[in-house]
């Protein structure tokens, strides 16, 4: 190690006079790009993070025909609820750890203190998390819908409602994950915090699929889901960022 080696090539030498004068805020695009790439690499090298919710979804849904019995009409009538409840739990269970790894290795403090917009960082983290754990649920849902004898014409509505719903749930869950960051065994507390907020999504999501299965219009339910998504998209990153600041400071 060379103790007197100058930091040549450094964008700004060690502690120049200019420090603090220039703005050190990066653009929105490069900030989000940076966090997305970070989350993506971390998740790809830790496959359990995105395989577990998918397996959970598949296992829970495929247990129902075994428990309830193979009668096609019974299965068809419970299919929307089963698919939706399983998807909701799969998303929320995986979200609990959204900030825990960053908290444990100290990078969360670095993110909070970086001076960059924390809501944007939260937004990027939630989006990557949804891409890896919410989106796969969408792709296997047609198969599981057939397993439960859901009418084929309801499957597109199922996928659209799951798209809107799981994304909303990811944002809502991020608030819960931020509030419980640093707490051990926060699973039950997280459920208590987040489940009441996710009930509207569940109600409108499954009722859209029920309506589609009986050939009724679904525009109303899907629009409400879209409105809930916009609400969550606008408010959840701000709320979660505030909760994170408190969560990080609560420990030492």
């Amino acid at each position, binding site marked *: 190690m060379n103790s007197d080696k100058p930091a040549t090539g450094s964008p700004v030498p060690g502690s120049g006079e200019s420090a*603090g004068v*220039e703005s050190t805020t*990066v653009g929105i695009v490069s900030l989000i790009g*940076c966090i997305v790439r970070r989350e993506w690499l971390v998740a790809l090298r830790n496959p359990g993070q995105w395989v577990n919710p998918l397996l959970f979804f598949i296992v829970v849904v495929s247990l129902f025909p075994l428990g309830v019995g193979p009668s096609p009409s019974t299965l068809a009538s419970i299919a929307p609820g089963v698919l939706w409840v399983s998807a909701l739990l799969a998303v929320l269970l995986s979200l609990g750890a959204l900030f825990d790894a960053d908290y444990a290795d100290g*990078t969360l403090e670095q993110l909070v203190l970086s001076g960059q917009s924390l809501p944007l960082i939260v937004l990027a983290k939630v989006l990557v998390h949804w891409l890896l754990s919410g989106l796969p649920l969408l792709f296997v849902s047609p198969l599981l819908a057939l397993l439960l004898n859901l009418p084929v014409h309801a499957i597109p509505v199922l996928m659209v409602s799951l798209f809107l719903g799981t994304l909303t749930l990811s944002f809502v869950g991020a608030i819960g994950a931020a509030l419980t960051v640093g707490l051990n065994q926060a699973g039950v507390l997280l459920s208590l915090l987040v489940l009441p907020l996710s009930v509207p999504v569940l109600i409108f999501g499954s009722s859209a699929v029920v309506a589609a299965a009986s050939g009724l219009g679904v525009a109303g339910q899907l629009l409400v889901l879209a409105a809930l998504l916009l609400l969550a998209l606008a408010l959840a990153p701000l709320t979660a960022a505030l909760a994170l600041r408190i969560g990080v*400071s609560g420990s030492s």
Partner: protein
Amino acid sequence: MSVDQKNSMLSVNNLTVWRGDNLLLDKISFALNSGDVLQIKGANGSGKTTLLRVTCGVGIADEGEVYWNGIPIHKSRDQFNDALLYLGHKPGIKGGLTAIENLRIFATLSGYSQTKETDRAIESALDALSLTPKSHIACRYLSAGQQRRVGLARLLLRSSHLWVLDEPLTSLDAAGLLWVEAQIGKHAANGGAVLLTTHVPLNIDAVTVDTLELG
């Protein structure tokens, strides 16, 4: 040390922190100006880390206030965060990412765009810390000392007035210790300020290290 919150760069005024029924920090005050190096000493559990966290604004004090250029830090968070480099108790690096990936994220978060110049700065920082051969290995496979070095490489990548270093010498070897001392000396000579905790007596040329004893 007298506390002059108007004219000091960083001043910490009567910080008091309770941990349950325990008074952890009792009216701690100090000030830091350009060129100052302040070493916090104290037994384990005397509140060194807590003091640093509160000073950085990631911890909450029950009483007292931290001022940056005369303004409470919760009112000047953006300016303060820009001027602050905090190396915490935990390494603050992602174990699943390589040293280069970790430092690229840090550079972006510090406001540098992803350019060749930034990459060169990262390479030279890794070189200065003898990490070049290990720069493409996921950090979780590095030794504790090497992980600490990846964290310390940030000292070269971000130009901040105030360095707050929590036990920066943990698991470092003798060469690492010398390197950190040299960096602190250079930073202070360039007009920066350093607040750190460590149990090792520091030997820095041309800079007086003030000490504050806790507990």
